[in-house]
């Protein structure tokens, strides 16, 4: 009863690759957040805050067999975060400087 393809016994390597893909995606968010942070601290922090969310979602890889109905929501969360980042980027690009920078938020004037 041993299948020809060893991975058919346990999709362990495929699962591993998928976990790594989630990790790369989370790291991409961290890199983008870090890049934005220098010029736009608030927007950068918002993007950085998405990193643990994506990382956390990646921990559920392989649990899809038990709860397949949750999988679309996990992936939709990724699309929602990417769209959020692009809306932030659009605001920064159009306004030049969004109304809030850290200096505006903290009462450091005068």
């Amino acid at each position, binding site marked *: 009863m041993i299948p020809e393809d060893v991975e058919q016994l346990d*999709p362990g390597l495929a699962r591993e*690759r*998928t976990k790594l893909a989630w990790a790369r*995606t989370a790291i991409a968010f961290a890199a983008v957040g870090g890049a934005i942070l220098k010029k736009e601290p608030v927007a950068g922090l918002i993007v950085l805050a998405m990193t643990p969310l994506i990382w956390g979602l990646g921990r559920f890889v392989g649990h899809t067999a038990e709860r*397949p109905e949750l999988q679309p929501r996990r992936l939709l969360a990724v699309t929602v975060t990417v769209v959020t980042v*692009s809306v932030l980027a659009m605001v*920064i*690009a159009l306004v030049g400087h969004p109304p809030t920078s850290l200096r505006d938020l903290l009462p450091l004037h005068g």
Partner: protein
Amino acid sequence: MEERRAARDGGDDHDRGSPHAPTEPDARFTLANERTFLAWNRTALALVVAGLGIVQLLPPFPGVPWGRHVLGIPLIVLGAGVSVISYGEWRRTQAALRRGASLPRSVLPRVLAGTIAGIAALSAAVLLVSAAR
């Protein structure tokens, strides 16, 4: 309709006897589909950052004050579009896997190639206008 039902129910009410009844596909196919989706989303993120970088980090083109925005904003919009389209394609692929149907063809390579080529042409135009002034 059947596609939507299959995606929502997750193949819980499948009938293994008939060939087109929705069944949960091989886990490796599901995982590969998920990786493809994630790869597209990283691409989308890269497009957004590229667009933002053009608007914020490039020095303005002499004589073309709107030049950076004309190049950067389409890239940002494309990034959001790629992410949304890739989610739709992930769903359709997953539904096709459940039905055992042939996989739908992706429009994303065409969208990406078309827009990048367009932005390259636009860059050349902005540079020419800038040089002429």
